């Protein structure tokens, strides 16, 4: 739902808005952290966003086999992907994002910072538009 709203505002404000994704797996979601690390493994071979979108579609099926299957669907080398996942190559990067979120007091997801302006929770297209328009006006 939120992902659809985001995709729509990115299309509408093409060239004026960019989106940065930060990992904030919550401790209670035991399968989330491997999923975040897997997305970064996909990113290392240039497939971050397709894998990111696939994870949101597949939510919450994030067992190891699922994560490897999604990599296979996207045409990634599944052996190399499995090694990346098993070695937890991007664990420290995910941890760094979590530390930054905690330092900012971000404890619920999703939380958005729109040019620094905090918007928390399931956000509609209209709410995004209002926040973006405000940010654009402040830039003038």
């Amino acid at each position, binding site marked *: 739902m939120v992902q659809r709203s*985001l995709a729509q505002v990115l299309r509408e404000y093409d*060239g004026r808005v960019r*989106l940065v*994704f*930060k990992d904030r797996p919550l401790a209670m979601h035991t399968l989330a952290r491997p999923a975040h690390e897997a997305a970064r493994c996909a990113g*290392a071979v240039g497939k971050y966003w397709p894998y990111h979108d696939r994870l949101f579609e597949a939510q919450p099926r994030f067992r190891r086999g699922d994560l490897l299957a999604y990599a296979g669907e996207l045409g990634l080398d599944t052996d190399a992907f499995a090694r990346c996942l098993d070695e937890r190559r991007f664990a420290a990067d995910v941890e760094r994002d979590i530390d*930054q979120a905690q330092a900012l007091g971000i404890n619920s997801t999703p939380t958005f910072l729109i040019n620094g302006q905090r918007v928390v929770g399931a956000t509609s297209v209209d709410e995004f538009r209002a926040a973006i328009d405000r940010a654009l006006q402040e830039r003038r």
Partner: protein
Amino acid sequence: MGTAASYSRSVQGLSRCADRSPRVYYSSMWLIFLLLALVIAARPARALAQIEITWSPTMVRGHSTAPVTIVEFSDYQ
């Protein structure tokens, strides 16, 4: 018996406050408010100064010169 003893201590406490000079009382209150205000004002400034958000270029969608940046902290699960 217990109730009576408590009541007696409470009255003693109130009368001690009443004996204090009003000027001393109000100036301490202002000092406390001032200190609280300083602590509250200092906290966000310190937070902004210390927290730097970094990101991987692979995790960015859209043009790098876009005037608006949405930073999404999210959980796949």
